[in-house]
């Protein structure tokens, strides 16, 4: 509820909720909302890359000496670079990392090693499921960033670094997805069950990391 008193040139607007707008870090609402968006995006992406890094570590642990070892190593190196980038973004954009990172650390390793023990095709099925989930998530983020950029033309340019990074990483994740399919992921035992279970888990992890 607001009361407006006007007499001559004195206008005193009183907000009965008495809340003081927190202007310390941001001079207007738009900037504050952008920071919230960035915080969420960077947190969930860093959690995702940490999980992916540990999944490949688990797969290498079991399948490192087999013929798919070099391929997994190559994909793992790319994921390591993704993780390093997002770790730097966390510092740069003052984002908060997710408190569940130890959980994703262990869960990722267990998932990677577990599916690799079911066989090389199962490991590839896990890769396919995770990469598909991550690519879709990155696409969603790109859409959000582009839409936000359109609404506020003056800060569209500052999204460019995050947009370019996410675009590049999404392309690499799609590449991993295609490599997984090429290496007979679909021949894995109970492929569709495995895939949907893992994607459910990924969805839950993404939902949690965005908030916690």
């Amino acid at each position, binding site marked *: *509820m607001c009361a407006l008193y006007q007499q001559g040139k004195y206008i005193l607007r009183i907000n009965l909720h008495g809340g*003081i707008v927190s202007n310390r870090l941001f001079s207007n609402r738009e900037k504050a909302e952008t920071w919230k968006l960035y915080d969420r995006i960077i947190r969930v992406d860093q959690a995702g890359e940490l999980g992916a890094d540990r999944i490949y570590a688990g797969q290498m642990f079991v399948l490192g000496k087999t013929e798919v070892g070099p391929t997994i190593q190559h994909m793992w190196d790319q994921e390591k670079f993704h993780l390093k980038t997002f770790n730097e973004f966390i*510092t740069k954009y003052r984002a908060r990392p997710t408190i569940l990172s130890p959980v994703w*650390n262990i869960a990722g390793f267990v998932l990677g090693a577990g599916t690799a023990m079911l066989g090389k095709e199962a490991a590839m099925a896990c890769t396919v499921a995770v990469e598909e989930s991550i690519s879709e998530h990155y696409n969603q983020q790109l859409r959000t960033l582009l839409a936000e950029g359109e609404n506020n033309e003056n800060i569209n340019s500052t999204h460019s670094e995050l947009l370019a990074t996410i675009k590049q990483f999404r392309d690499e994740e799609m590449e991993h997805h295609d490599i997984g399919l090429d290496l007979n992921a679909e021949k894995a035992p109970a492929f569709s069950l495995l895939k949907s279970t893992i994607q459910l888990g990924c969805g839950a992890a993404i939902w949690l990391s965005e908030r916690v």
Partner: protein
Amino acid sequence: MAYSLSRAIINRHLLRILMPTSAQPLIACYHNCQSTKTKQGLLKNKQICVYPRRNVITSETPNPLGEETKENSDNKDKDENEDFDVKTQILDQALEFVEVYGWSREAISNGAEASGYAGVAEGMFRNGGSDLALHFVRKCNAHFEEYLKSESEKLKETDDKPNVTAFLRDAIEFRLRMIIPYIGSWPQAMSLLLHPNIITSSMGELTRMVDDVWYYAGDTSADIKWYAKRGLLAKLYGSMQLVILTDQSPDFRDTWAFLDRRLSDMEKMSEISESIQQGTESIGETLTAGFTVLRNITGFGEQRR
């Protein structure tokens, strides 16, 4: 109805006589009115215009679901900024009166009068003294952030191995010294800041301050260490506040000694935890040493030579 209206008019004139300044909000009069008829009378006289409560919709209300056009939101930002400027000005002035009146509505009221508004403008602040304390904390933290920026430049310029403990020590001392002018009434401020109405804001300020300190100290952690560092520093700052309140030594020497001891403890803890981590990496190898030897002897071992 005529009686209550004339009472309202008389009240208005009384206010004008009693108020030293020319800004005479009738809002206090309006909201002190017990009868709705007087309120309607005031409204009808078009002396004040009141946006209705959210759950009461009449034909005169502006559409609350009106289009949030860019112009609208720009105006809202402008209005919020105006609001913010007025409130900041009042609270800044009110800080001068804290010594006499404590962190209370009286201090804000005097501050309002000192800034040229009516004393009843303290009604703007729903949480009274808590709002004043929160404003002071925000002001200190903003000033603190500028100090941290300049100190972190110096930290980067000097050695290749920056002394983070010294940086933390200087930062915490600087921040604590800011409350020394108000140290007599600081216990009251501390309890006000824990009031349920603003505890989320005051905790938010604490976490932001602690994040600032670690960021400018050069922290780049991105996992659970991020939380550990900030949690430790927040706890340290809390205990330092309590220590400085009971310190009677000249220039608070005992407080700074306490701070030095706590920081050296923290350093030792981090060294110990690092060495434990290194230890655990080799524990796995140590435990499986026997099996590794067997494996190598039988030829099923790894080919590393």
